[in-house]
């Protein structure tokens, strides 16, 4: 898997920081125009063919970072106009993910390539094992006919010289539900009906061509207009920065939020309700129940594994319950969820209590633009201290554990965890779906509570995190004990 801190992600974050600085200075419209030139100055080493191509792609990245999609990209429209319209926008726009055509490498379709290591051997297992007769030996080298090849990979596994390699299409490979395919020009297109907004493609694309549409412009606009903005931070956010207890609250207040809420408070409510619901469903004779706090998972089931849909708990997510508390206390405020997740942006769109969803990258950019050092912040006293199990929702296994400790008879629980909805994870889901529908019999080992995390490792490994998940896991432990 691609390293989460790579050049492509650094460029995306740098653009966010620049835009945020400009907006805070009141110069967003006039300044946005210069970002591509400043980031790819004359005489600099280009990433692509030339700095002009780099600048054009930077221009498109700026547009996505202003919260617009690139699907109806207009060559002639000035960045200043995109900025102006972003400042006039009432609400975030659908969908949350956009493809930068220009940045997309249009990775080769045929995924198997014969390298120089080919010896054109006598045995020729590549040829003999190819069901499609797609391989010929020409000029002392095996050659794959692209039109006949069906990418089965048998030639690669059978070559004694390891001469045949697989060139993957990283985004398609990362997408667990087959929502990404190529158009007639070889560029990638997302089927938003199939997409679960898990963010895997965004993380996997080495060209940074899959981008989430930022909502930071909108939030800062409200701040600058004097609206009261309440921040709700997910437990995974607390694991991102090095700081003492209460300093994250201090930093968010310094960034301009009116009040700061821990989403772990909502996680406690979710866990409590989920435990009740589990007991009820088991009494009613249900085979199994699954958790529901991961929105990418819920969407994956609704769109792709209908046989399991009845098992998803009706309990709402920690974001929802936290936002409900916020809006009860301050009905006129703007509520902003901050988390590591792309699918939460989708969930936020449907939730009446959530106005905006920011990513960790975005909140990080806001801190940098305002020169806010976490470790130098005032320590804020916390009004509510959520339980450690509520805070532990951010890591795989945390949700199931939080439910378990709240059960009257925890010994009746048989929990299983699907750690990451990769293609293999989707297969596991389908399997549980078949058990639920009776297609496959349940066995002794069939679990009755299934926790599903779309991201392997849990939310601390979400698509917009900035901190290595191993480091984040250590920091999360410290946060649990606060």
């Amino acid at each position: 898997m691609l390293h989460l801190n790579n050049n492509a992600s650094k460029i995306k974050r740098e653009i966010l920081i620049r835009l945020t600085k400009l907006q805070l200075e009141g110069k967003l419209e006039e300044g946005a125009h210069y970002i591509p030139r400043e980031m790819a100055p004359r005489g600099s080493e280009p990433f692509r063919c030339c700095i002009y191509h780099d600048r054009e792609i930077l221009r498109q990245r700026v547009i996505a970072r202003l919260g617009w999609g690139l699907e109806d990209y207009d060559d002639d429209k000035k960045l200043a106009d995109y900025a102006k319209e972003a400042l006039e926008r009432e609400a975030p726009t659908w969908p949350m993910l956009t493809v930068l055509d220009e940045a997309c490498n249009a990775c080769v379709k045929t995924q198997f390539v014969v390298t120089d290591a080919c010896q054109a051997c006598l045995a020729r297992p590549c040829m003999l094992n190819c069901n499609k007769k797609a391989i010929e030996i020409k000029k002392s080298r095996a050659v794959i006919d692209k039109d006949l090849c069906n990418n089965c990979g048998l030639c690669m596994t059978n070559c004694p010289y390891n001469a045949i390699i697989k060139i993957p299409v990283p985004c398609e490979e990362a997408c667990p539900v087959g929502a990404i395919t190529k158009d007639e020009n070889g560029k990638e297109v997302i089927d938003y009906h199939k997409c679960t907004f898990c963010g895997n493609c965004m993380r996997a694309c080495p060209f940074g061509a899959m981008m989430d549409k930022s909502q930071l412009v909108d939030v800062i606009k409200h701040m600058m207009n004097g609206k009261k903005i309440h921040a709700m931070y997910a437990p995974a956010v607390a694991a991102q920065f090095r700081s003492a207890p209460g300093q994250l609250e201090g930093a968010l207040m310094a960034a301009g939020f009116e009040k700061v809420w821990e989403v772990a408070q909502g996680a406690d409510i979710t866990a409590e309700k989920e435990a009740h619901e589990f007991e009820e469903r088991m009494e009613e004779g249900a085979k199994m129940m699954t958790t529901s706090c991961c929105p990418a998972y819920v969407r994956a089931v609704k769109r792709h594994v209908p046989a399991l849909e009845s098992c998803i708990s009706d309990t709402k997510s920690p974001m929802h319950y936290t936002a409900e508390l916020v809006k009860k206390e301050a009905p006129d405020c703007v509520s902003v969820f901050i988390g590591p997740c792309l699918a939460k942006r989708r969930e936020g769109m449907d939730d009446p209590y959530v106005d905006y969803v920011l990513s960790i990258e975005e909140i990080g950019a806001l801190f940098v633009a305002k020169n806010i050092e976490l470790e130098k912040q005032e320590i804020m006293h916390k009004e509510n201290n959520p339980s450690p199990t509520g805070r532990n929702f951010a890591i795989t296994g945390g949700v199931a554990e939080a439910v378990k400790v709240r059960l009257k008879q925890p010994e009746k629980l048989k929990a299983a965890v699907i750690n990451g909805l990769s293609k293999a994870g989707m297969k596991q889901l389908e399997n549980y779906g078949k058990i639920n529908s009776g297609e496959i019999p349940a066995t002794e080992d069939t679990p009755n509570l299934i926790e599903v995390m779309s991201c392997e490792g849990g939310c601390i490994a979400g698509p917009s995190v900035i901190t290595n998940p191993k480091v984040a896991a250590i920091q999360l432990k410290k946060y649990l004990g606060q």
Partner: protein
Amino acid sequence: MKNIRVSICTGTACFVMGASEIMMLEDSIPEDLQGRMNLEIEGVSCLEKCTNHNRQKAPFVLINDNLLENATLAGVIDALRTIVEEE
């Protein structure tokens, strides 16, 4: 054996630009370098190297008194190897 002190800036800008990866240093020392230096690793609060146009060079790491810009885990290990092997 040489004493080497690696100070990783954990200021906000450095963290946003990927400093957390370098926090994995202790567990990432390659075998051929193990036991060949007295290595001390610390996370330090903002080194204040990221003033305005220098921000693009984050993350920053201090190795003894030498400042490493655009630091990566591999880059730090490389710098350690240079120090260990220069004699």
